[in-house]
């Protein structure tokens, strides 16, 4: 026992066992229902896009780790989740080079230029999606993307149809169909029920904050209800907004990303509500059919500002009280 080398480190000597790998593994598990549904729904091309997006994102991470001489953190699966989310938001027919460019933008411009995991002010996936939507809007047109598919439901992207045809288009979409994924859209963003189940799992596991999700959904429902009540002929009902497009995946998986979302309770509520509010503004007043990507990027931007609303630290502000 005399010269046994002991481990010397500092308190606390216990850890609750949580890790970045656990967090991302749980994101992965939570994303699976919606992703698997997308593969069955859109066939082998969907599997190809998901696999390519995930693997290329991981490859960019490796390349950037080597170039920037940083510790290889590929095993944390952070980039895998960025890539998977990217794949789930694009149509199954997206060409391979667009997918690779997209994950490059997401991982390199969305994450690495800000210093890697934890440093990104925006959700990396959304940075990729946003830049691609601006650069090649044609590849994000879900109506043309699935033109060679045969579906047994209305093969129109709901939000695009709403934008171009007005509320007449709403007759072809039932809330049940939207919830069960009988719509065209991103590979993993159509199956509302799967996203909700995965999202609730993530909330229960503590990896997504319920405050953000709840206030995000409340923001959508309240704002959309106001529009709908005032002009039922012009604007879609709140549930249609909630179940179509990227709304659910945005609420449960994108807005809750750690680095770009607040940590205090009141800021989380404001952040989420603002996101929901912005989505409806973009859809009802703006020119884009689906405002989710822009709305979440916008709330990412205001996050540091609103996260300064926080409780007073022990012994501050109230002398001897």
């Amino acid at each position, binding site marked *: 026992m005399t010269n046994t080398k002991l*481990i010397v480190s500092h308190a606390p000597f216990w850890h609750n066992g949580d890790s970045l790998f656990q967090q991302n593994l749980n994101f992965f598990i939570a994303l699976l229902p919606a992703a698997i549904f997308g593969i069955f729904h859109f066939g082998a091309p969907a599997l190809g896009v998901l696999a390519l997006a995930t693997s290329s994102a991981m490859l960019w991470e490796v390349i950037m780790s080597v170039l920037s001489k940083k510790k290889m953190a590929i095993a944390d699966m952070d980039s895998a989740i960025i890539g998977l989310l990217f794949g789930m938001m694009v149509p199954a027919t997206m060409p391979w080079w667009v997918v690779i460019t997209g994950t490059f933008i997401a991982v390199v411009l969305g994450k690495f230029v800000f210093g890697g995991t934890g440093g990104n002010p925006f959700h990396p996936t959304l940075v990729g999606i946003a830049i691609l939507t601006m650069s090649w809007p044609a590849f994000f047109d879900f109506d043309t993307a699935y033109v060679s598919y045969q579906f047994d439901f209305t093969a129109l992207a709901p939000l695009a149809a709403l934008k171009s045809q007005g509320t007449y288009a709403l007759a072809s979409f039932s809330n049940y169909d939207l919830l069960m994924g009988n719509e065209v859209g991103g590979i993993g963003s159509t199956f509302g029920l799967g996203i909700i189940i995965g999202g609730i799992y993530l909330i229960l596991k503590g990896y997504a904050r319920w405050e953000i999700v709840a206030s995000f959904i409340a923001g959508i429902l309240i704002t959309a209800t106001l529009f709908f009540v005032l002009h039922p002929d012009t604007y879609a009902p709140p549930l249609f907004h909630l179940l179509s497009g990227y709304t659910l995946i945005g609420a449960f998986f994108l807005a809750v990303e750690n680095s770009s979302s607040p940590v205090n309770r009141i800021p989380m509520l404001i952040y989420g509500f603002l996101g929901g509010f912005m989505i409806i503004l973009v859809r009802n007043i703006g020119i884009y059919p689906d405002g989710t990507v822009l709305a979440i990027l916008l709330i990412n931007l205001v996050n540091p500002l609103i996260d300064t609303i926080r409780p007073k630290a022990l012994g501050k502000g109230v002398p001897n009280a």
Partner: protein
Amino acid sequence: MIKRSFFALSKPRLTYDLLDTSLPSAEELAIPGTLTLLLPEKIDRAKKALIGPGDAVKKGQKLKLYDDSAPYVLSPAAGTIKGFDSYADDFGNTATYITIKPDASAKDDDQWAQIDLEQTLEFAADYLGHIPGALPVSTLTNPNYDIRTIVVTGADTDILCDTCQFVCTAYAGLMVAGAKILKAMTRADRICITVPENLSAQVDLDGFNVLRTSDTYPSNLPAMIMKDHFGKALSPGTLPEEEGVCFIRPEALVSLARTYETGHPVFDKIITLIDKGGQRHRVKATIGTPISKILSCFNVQINERDRVIIGGPMRGFATYTVHHPVVPDMDTLMVQDSDVIPEISDNACVNCGECVRVCPANIPVNLLVRYLEANLYEEAADRFDLESCIECGLCGYVCRAGIPLYQYIRLGKHELLTLRENA
């Protein structure tokens, strides 16, 4: 080790352990072949030392390094000084190990027989600073503090530990006597004792103000006691002493009572050893006994890359050698197997907010750690409440990125003090 629960919607809850009543009473350990005393002063080669190797020491003799030095230790046994060694703790504070070879045949020619035991603080500061339980004489004699309330930590401050609870239940009579002596010495008009609210064992203490504390960590820490029981949230950077409250261990009272009762200082420290399987052992060891003796007494095998912790799992410190001696404030020893030692990392903060939600002092740890990593200690204190930290260690316990947050904060406070001293 307590792991994250499957459902983690709410913040984790760590609870204090109640007194382990299944243990037999403390096992007495014989005085070992070598005693090591830890003297909190560093060796200065330029000065002429009062003591040197080969010098004979008597039981209870006061050992000082130099004429003008204030720190001292009492030799727990008669014997000869074997040598000196220097010791540095995790913040680089240096101290001196004095090794003594006890001589069992030496007659107990009593140093203390001539000393008149006065019940004054000056006497305590002169002779009783080294009794088991570490009576905080420097706090009590500090002219800047007006100590009016003494809080005995009957409820252990760290999880897993139960030494203080054991002392309170086993030596209630001596504690009452010790409290009387302490009251006579100081200007304190109130003596309180913290007792876990669920403790079934009767703590029958005359004249004590009993404060029942919740079983949720960190409610037994001084800052939380101040807030919950005295209604005084300590303003950042202040100590309970500055509010007139001094926290002491129950064992200090027991040692005080025994010293005045017998006329001799006492040296046997009660320690709880928690082995690798979480099993507790209670031992009474002489101050200066190397930890390795206690470990071998209970057949605790130490392998390479294990960890020996002095104190509890949340606030203790890890020793680099099993030769570290028993010191007056050592309540708990804990051994961790190399397999269960959690890894720490140099990851950047990912802003998950677990630390912010778990922090009992509402510190924005996620922002604070960014400043501490960049060595911006002044900003950390001014804008991100560095000094509000009550040092519970929960932030490091929950950190998803595996950042040693508590260490960053402790280091930050240390550096801040150094900055201010040099300013």
